[in-house]
């Protein structure tokens, strides 16, 4: 019998205590924010969409190898000895044309593993977090600054250069010569006028 009444009492008391707590919270300011109107302030280390500063990229492929989901695709073509690819911001001369630098943000897991190995700190995470798209393929971002024609041209140039070199080699090889001379013509070999013209345009 005693338990019976104590049960009634504890029920009513604990319900009243709970109601007091919720009632108090009616007058506590809300913690939610009205998102598109009010934007949260993001900390400086925020990890959102990646950005690649192609001026600094040397095409070393380290970010692509570090990526656990293989969302970075890089293709490079060796620059011709005469090409001026430019310098990175810390003064290193670049040696490769980057003809493909795609990041598929549909795959990206925002783990930041690609950022750390980069020798020139050209890939980093920005605080842009609104980039939804209607199609999955528009989430593949192309960071290369060259136009598609230029990319093809660079590839062709290098192929042609390789072919020329091979032909040269073959030509040199016929009269058996020591390997030192094999390299020599490469330097002396004048680049075709075509390439020079192309470089000026770019």
């Amino acid at each position, binding site marked *: 019998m005693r338990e019976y009444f104590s049960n009634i009492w504890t029920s009513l008391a*604990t319900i009243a205590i709970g109601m007091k707590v919720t009632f108090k919270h009616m007058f506590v300011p809300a913690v939610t924010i009205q998102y598109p109107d009010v934007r949260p302030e993001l900390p400086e280390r925020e990890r959102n969409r990646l950005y690649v500063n192609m001026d600094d990229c040397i095409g070393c492929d380290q970010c692509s190898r570090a990526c656990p989901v293989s969302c970075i695709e890089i293709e490079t073509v060796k620059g011709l000895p005469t090409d001026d690819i430019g310098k990175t911001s810390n003064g290193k001369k670049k040696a490769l044309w980057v003809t493909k630098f795609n990041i598929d943000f549909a795959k990206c897991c925002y783990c930041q593993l690609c950022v750390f190995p980069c020798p020139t700190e050209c890939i980093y995470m920005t605080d842009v977090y609104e980039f939804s798209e209607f199609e999955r393929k528009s989430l593949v971002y192309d960071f290369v600054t060259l136009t598609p024609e230029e990319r093809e041209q660079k590839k062709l140039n290098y192929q042609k250069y390789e072919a020329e070199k091979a032909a040269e080699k073959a030509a040199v090889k016929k009269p058996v010569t020591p390997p030192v001379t094999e390299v020599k013509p490469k330097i002396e070999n004048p680049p075709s006028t075509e390439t020079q013209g192309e470089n000026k345009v770019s």
Partner: protein
Amino acid sequence: MSFETNKSIEYKPVVKTEHMVLNMGPQHPSTHGVLRLELELEGEIITRVIPHIGYLHRCFEKHAEAMTYPQVVPYTDRMDYLASMGNEFGYAVAVERLLGIQVPERVEYIRVIMAELQRIASHLVALGTYGADIGAMTPFLFCFRDREMILSLFEMTCGARLLYNYIWVGGLSHDLHPDFVRKTRDFCTYFKPKIKELNDLLTYNKIFIERTANVGVLPLDTAINFGISGPMLRGSGLKWDLRKDDPYSVYHKFDFNIPVGEGKVGTVGDCWDRYWVRVLEMEESLKIIEQALDQLPEGDVTSAIPKRIKPPIGQVYARVENPRGELGYFIMSDGNVNPFRVKVRAPSFVNLGVMDVLCRGHMVADIIAILGSVDIVLGEVDR
């Protein structure tokens, strides 16, 4: 309102009737993800529970075999996504033991702070969703409000709110943010009264006690035989915490208690005890965080990160106390840059195995209470 709850485990039907098979999940509001429970019912009384898992199976172990050791870290985040820091911690401990490297003191302290903050965050989700399962929505949102603050601390430190990739093998990805210590102290002082408020609102509520006390009683010997760990095992009354019983990192330097279930309102090892152990653990975690912040040494957090991780041929089983229990990594190395075999002993996976024993003889509504008190994360069960 004290009502005789069904204490017996075996239900003896009086009238022979046909059993009803009820599928609960994989899409159900309270299965905490994509768990499917096949219930065999006698009216509303449960005679058998068959859990079906695997709906979230993402082949973590197969993936890990194709990754280098540092690349596995983001994948470990995705197992127990409510306690990512703990997962990374366990993985880092395992690989470091395999490599035989010692990490700087500061790294260990930061790891402990992060793991304990994560424990609070994870328990907040556990307690909040438990309340929501029982029918009280308000504690759920209060808990999430406080959890957001912890997530903001993490975001400030490493830039991500949920999947951190922060604790690396041999070190950390970033040092602490200059404001971190101050803000964490603020959080500790803010959070203590909130625990009391949660207790007022939910823990001591008579209806809540009625729903959880004497429900799903897990006796200690059963618990050990089932390999139960974490708050569930402690709820059954065993003082067993890997932070004390198999110390790793710098936990031996801190002074904290291990709360155990005492059967305060019901039987030892019932749902309320498991819930209560989690509430007390949050307080203990706060203690650890405060001590760690006081003792935080200076140093470099990235100095011990190996350039190339290539462990010797061998195997290791390392375990840490995750919010859900003993998280163990069994890593076999064949001397390559990729692990040869990674097996995760996921606490939720093992804890879920006891569902059938816990549920028999209870009612459908109790399934929810029991499942909530087991506190599973399907990402970890299925890996």
